[in-house]
């Protein structure tokens, strides 16, 4: 490791590190625009110039200069300061200096560096260049006149998102950033372009002119729009979430988040349930009522159903552990074994933890050298995770094969076909060459998607995948590559808590059927909307009751008899388990609207109305109970590897019926994203439905 001194501080930097990185080790920040930790080095902004001895008597770009033994670096000498002053002056030659109307104002690298190295007045008297703005879709505003040509956005598209959509065209002072085709960028990571842009050239379109960064209250939280559990920051002002940004978390999302996770937020204001609603009698219209009245109607209607009504609970994809704990205890109090957190019918096995976790861990994918996707489309199900796989493939470090729908994952994939039974058998028998690739890999990974599990023979697929993992050595000493890719943030928590049918209990699909046929009296939906609710809507023969607890008036609320307003995840401090098994907690950023309460409180009120008050006086009581049910749930932020060995899934034949995508529409997967206009605009821009509009669409 070369030893050098930077501003007189001795530093030992790893071989191949750059001077800029070595300076960071020493705690010295060198200003930069084009250098970005996660992108390749361009060396074109010249802001990071430093004085180096020995060397030619001119400043050197520290971002592209490897460290050498005995080097003496001066980051703040007369020469370095003069060089940076010159660089800033040149950058400002064509920069419009329209900070007062620029959304980047207050969090702009160019502004900050100008304060340090800029002159008060400009010597430039000529006309400034101006460039036309380009249409990059509904998420990004462009003001290319502000561009300083750092090419971070170009490199992000090429190296992280995997879609080479942007380029820097022209030369000299006519350089500009341009997409090959105007319109929407074909990536689920487009929002991150705004973060990598150091100036106000690319800005957050839905956030445009809404707020200044210093007016926002920042709340560190966890994203639950997919199952990765990415670290995010919620920026809010006067009880409105205005923006969501990724937080640095190398183990999970590095510093990226998907577009749905960033831009669903206007859905938090639409279609909200801010008051209870109830149908006084069967078939009556939903009427807005007070909490007391709603619970009274609930009690009366349940009493009318007889002495011991049969109750079932279906939890949705975004149900937090506190709510599930309360609901589980409610079921126990009622003596009901009918509960399920798998509304989509995924045949996940809650008995073996290793059978439903992403055991390889997200960070572990950085070592993966052979990846088999079974019924999974990571690009749609977890775009940030897909970016990690893309990076491995791009560097030639991993080979990927897939059983499932052939879609564009941004990297080459060996297609094993979409006849699951046959393809799995071929791998098991070793007749397909990819079996050998997996077997000989150092860190093989099998990713099982929900598309493979949410079908009749899902348990058999799970069993076949486990069998394959054992046979090909995917699970070995110090490495477990068997990984289930989840799409629902509440799923792993639900399975950890055992929120699945008890002995002789009904699963989600059976509960819906039973309510129609008369063997179930009360069905409680905890934000469950992603299943076919028509069976509930058409139950015309009986007085059976549907209670919906959730934040949005979506499919579930529409068919319910009692609707109780809950909180969206930005409005509660709640516990979730990511698909890796990491127990994490969101923090409340804003308050829930109107009479809405935290969902576990709503469950507790229902319990009291049914005559089974739960012994919880605060959320701490619920959390204590949660940890009593499963001690793992009491250990926040840590990853506990799940032991491998016990069998899971059920033996059986895997049919030839093709897998179907688990996430057919990336932008709309939950009640919140369905309520978002921004997400709707993305769907429209991507599908190009504008041409097919009829007169009634507006």
């Amino acid at each position, binding site marked *: 490791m070369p030893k050098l001194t930077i501003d007189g501080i001795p530093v030992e930097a790893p071989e191949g590190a750059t001077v800029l990185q070595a300076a960071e080790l020493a705690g010295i920040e060198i200003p930069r625009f084009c250098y970005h930790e996660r992108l390749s080095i361009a060396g074109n902004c010249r802001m990071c110039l430093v004085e180096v001895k020995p060397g030619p008597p001119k400043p050197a770009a520290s971002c592209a200069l490897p460290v050498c033994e005995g080097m003496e670096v001066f980051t703040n000498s007369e020469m370095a300061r003069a060089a940076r002053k010159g660089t800033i002056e040149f950058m400002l030659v064509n920069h419009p200096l329209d900070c007062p109307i620029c959304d980047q104002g207050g969090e702009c690298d160019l502004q900050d560096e100008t304060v340090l190295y800029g002159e008060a007045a400009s010597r430039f008297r000529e006309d400034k260049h101006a*460039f*036309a703005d380009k249409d990059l879709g509904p998420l990004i505003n462009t003001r290319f006149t502000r561009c300083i040509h750092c090419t971070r956005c170009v490199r992000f598209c090429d190296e992280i998102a995997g879609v*080479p*959509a*942007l*380029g*820097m*065209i*022209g*030369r000299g002072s*006519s350089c*500009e950033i*341009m*997409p*090959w085709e105007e319109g929407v960028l074909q990536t689920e990571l487009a929002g991150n372009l705004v973060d990598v842009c150091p100036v106000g050239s690319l800005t957050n379109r839905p956030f445009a002119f809404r707020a200044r960064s210093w007016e926002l209250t920042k709340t560190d939280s966890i994203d639950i729009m997919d199952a990765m559990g990415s670290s995010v920051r919620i920026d809010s002002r006067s009880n409105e979430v205005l923006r969501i940004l990724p937080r640095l978390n190398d183990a999970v999302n590095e510093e990226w988040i998907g577009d749905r996770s960033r831009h669903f937020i206007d859905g938090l204001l639409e279609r909200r349930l801010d008051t209870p609603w109830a149908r006084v009698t069967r078939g009556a219209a939903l009427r807005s009522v007070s909490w007391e009245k709603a619970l009274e109607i609930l009690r009366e209607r349940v009493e009318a159903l007889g002495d011991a009504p049969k109750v079932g609970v279906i939890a949705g994809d975004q149900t937090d552990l506190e709510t599930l704990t309360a609901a589980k205890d409610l079921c126990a109090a009622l003596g009901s074994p009918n509960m399920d957190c798998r509304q989509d019918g995924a045949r996940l096995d809650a008995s073996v933890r290793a059978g439903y976790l992403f055991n390889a861990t997200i960070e572990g994918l950085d070592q993966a050298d052979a990846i088999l996707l079974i019924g999974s489309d990571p690009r749609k199900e977890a775009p940030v995770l897909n970016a990690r796989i893309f990076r491995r493939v791009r560097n030639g470090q991993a080979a990927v094969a897939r059983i499932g729908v052939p879609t564009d994952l941004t990297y080459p994939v060996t297609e094993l076909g979409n006849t699951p039974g046959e393809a799995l058998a071929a791998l098991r028998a070793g007749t397909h060459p990819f079996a050998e690739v997996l077997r000989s890999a150092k860190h093989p990974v099998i990713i099982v998607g929900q598309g493979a599990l949410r079908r009749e023979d899902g348990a058999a697929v799970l069993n076949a995948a486990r069998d394959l993992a054992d046979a090909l050595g995917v699970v070995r000493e110090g490495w477990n590559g068997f990984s289930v890719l989840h799409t629902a943030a509440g799923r792993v928590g639900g399975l950890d808590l055992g929120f699945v049918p008890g002995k002789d209990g009904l699963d989600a699909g059976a509960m819906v059927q039973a309510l129609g046929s008369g063997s179930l009296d009360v069905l409680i939906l905890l934000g469950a909307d992603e299943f076919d609710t028509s069976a509930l809507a058409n139950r015309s023969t009986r007085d059976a009751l549907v209670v919906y607890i959730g934040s949005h008036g979506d499919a579930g609320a529409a068919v319910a008899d009692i609707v109780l307003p809950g909180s969206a995840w930005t409005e509660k401090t709640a516990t979730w388990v990511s698909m890796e098994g990491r127990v994490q907690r969101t923090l409340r950023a804003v308050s829930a609207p109107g009479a809405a309460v935290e969902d576990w409180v709503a469950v507790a009120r229902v319990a009291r109305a049914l005559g089974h008050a739960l012994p919880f006086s605060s959320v701490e009581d619920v959390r204590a109970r949660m940890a009593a049910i499963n001690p793992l749930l009491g250990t926040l932020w840590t990853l506990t590897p799940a032991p491998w060995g016990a069998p899971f899934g059920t033996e059986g034949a895997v049919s030839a019926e093709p897998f179907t995508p688990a996430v057919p529409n990336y932008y709309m997967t939950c009640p919140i994203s369905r309520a978002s206009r921004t997400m709707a605009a993305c769907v429209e821009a991507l599908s190009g439905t504008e041409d097919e509009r009829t007169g009634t669409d507006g």
Partner: protein
Amino acid sequence: MIETNTAAAGTAPFAFTPENQAEARSILARYPKGREHSAALPLLDLAQRQQGYVDRSAMEAVAGLTGLAPIRILEVATFYTMFRHAPVGEHHFEVCTNISCWLRGSDEVLRALRDELGLDPGGKSDDGKFSVQECECLGACVNAPAVRVGDHYFEDLTYDNTVALIRKLRAGEKVVLGSQTGRVGSANAAGATALAGRAS
């Protein structure tokens, strides 16, 4: 903003002729396997020689052959001023206006083009015979000012000999390539000053 044309509606997209397809294959064969990207420039040149300019459709054809994203080809094609993005005249004047040519009178060359053809840089004559463009340094500074027409350089230009050159081209007469003042190579215009007494 640099305008790059997409093919007009109704026109067939660019495709290499059979001869040029063979040529393209031989160009690609010049580079080691896995380095097909390097063929982007010669292939763009080939496309321009076939079509007279490179539009988006031609860039897509080159992108397909080299395995590069079309945007990478657009970057290359707009970086070099020798690539044109719209049809030009039969005699396309690329006038160097960089410092040496400018100091030696490139303004006079442009004035001659304006007077004789009525064209400013970027213009094209109605009959399609002439077009004019400013260009970056042609590397012919020793014989400045210089102009490139097609594949040929015309040097040591003045107002008068530029007018004469245009007239000859218009009439289809033979023109002298290189220096228009009869200078051999880049020899001193004032005659030999060093070793003047020695027999050559």
